[in-house]
């Protein structure tokens, strides 16, 4: 039998055998296999990096799990770096493990996230909203000015724009999006583009 353990909206997707899930709101992330997340390097332990992903345990990332990495050719990762990778092992019995390459051996955008930029945390519900196909927030923001965005499923977002001020504006909008309605958001953005 099925037991309900979280509260939220029950959603249904009819395609491909059908899927039901509970759309709940939470801030704490639980590592799940296959999820792309942003991790912060906290320690180097021999051949393995320890990453903080916001879960109950630090995740481990082997230095060979980067594209083009060999024993001689080590990736240049320092403590405090940001890494975008996916979970390859993530269950409640074992320490989660991450890699920065996909199944075909290509990095496909994963790896060390570059210099500058701003990392902040939001709730998981907002992340899912932002990652939905044709998200209005993202579309509206993209009209403002050029910027770069990395969204991790663990609630972390990294933003980088040309100036510090622009970066902070984007950060504030994304954080506030959680509690603003669509109209309020459009008003705020109109003010900004007017400026």
């Amino acid at each position, binding site marked *: 039998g*099925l037991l309900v353990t979280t509260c939220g909206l029950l*959603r249904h*997707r009819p395609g491909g055998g059908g*899927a039901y*899930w509970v759309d709940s709101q939470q801030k704490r992330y*639980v590592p*799940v*296999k*296959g*999820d*792309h997340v942003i991790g912060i390097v906290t320690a180097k332990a021999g051949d393995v990096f320890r990453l903080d992903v916001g879960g109950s345990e630090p995740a481990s990332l082997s230095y060979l799990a980067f594209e083009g990495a060999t024993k001689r050719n080590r990736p240049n990762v320092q403590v405090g770096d940001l890494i*975008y990778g996916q979970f390859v092992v993530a269950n409640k019995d074992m320490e989660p493990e991450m890699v920065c390459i996909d199944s075909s051996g290509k990095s*496909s*955008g994963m790896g060390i996230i570059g210099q500058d930029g701003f990392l902040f945390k939001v709730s998981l519900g907002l992340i*899912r909203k932002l*990652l*939905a*196909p044709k*998200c209005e927030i*993202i579309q509206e*923001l*993209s009209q403002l*000015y*050029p*910027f*770069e*965005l*990395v*969204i*991790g*499923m663990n609630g972390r977002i990294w933003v*980088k*724009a*040309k100036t510090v001020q622009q970066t902070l504006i984007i950060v504030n909008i994304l954080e506030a999006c959680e509690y603003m309605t669509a109209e309020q958001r459009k008003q705020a953005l109109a003010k900004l583009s007017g400026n």
Partner: protein
Amino acid sequence: FMQRGLDSQTKKQLEEEEKKIINEEHWYLDVPDLKEKESCIIEERSFLRCEDLVYGRMSFKGFNPEVEKLMIQMNSKCKEEEIEEDGKMEADVSDEEMARRYETLVGTIGKKFLRKRDQRVLKDDDEDEDDEVEEGNSNTRPSKRAKKMFLKPQD
């Protein structure tokens, strides 16, 4: 415990006794086998499968061209129809030229691997065709030259 000259009968008896002892010691379930219920429910922990989530790395207005290329690549994996509509990539060499080149290529490399006899046949064919064209012979030769048969020497 190897004992010489043990009769085969006594041997069998001994083996059977051993087996009995072992079998009695083995535990076995006295319960009838339960039918395995196939559960039609698969548990999925990640939201990725439920909702069609887009790739997490994005760049706008050309801030990071590599990431923008990635965005197109990743998102097009989900929607393959759009790729087909956009059309094929421009090729440096047109399809017709490619076909022509390939045709000749196959011929030349094929010749390389023919045996000597077949090579001579090919050569003669070419020469015959040339002759026909030049001299306008009305002799009709078979298009495929048969294998050269052994000719009896005339007396």
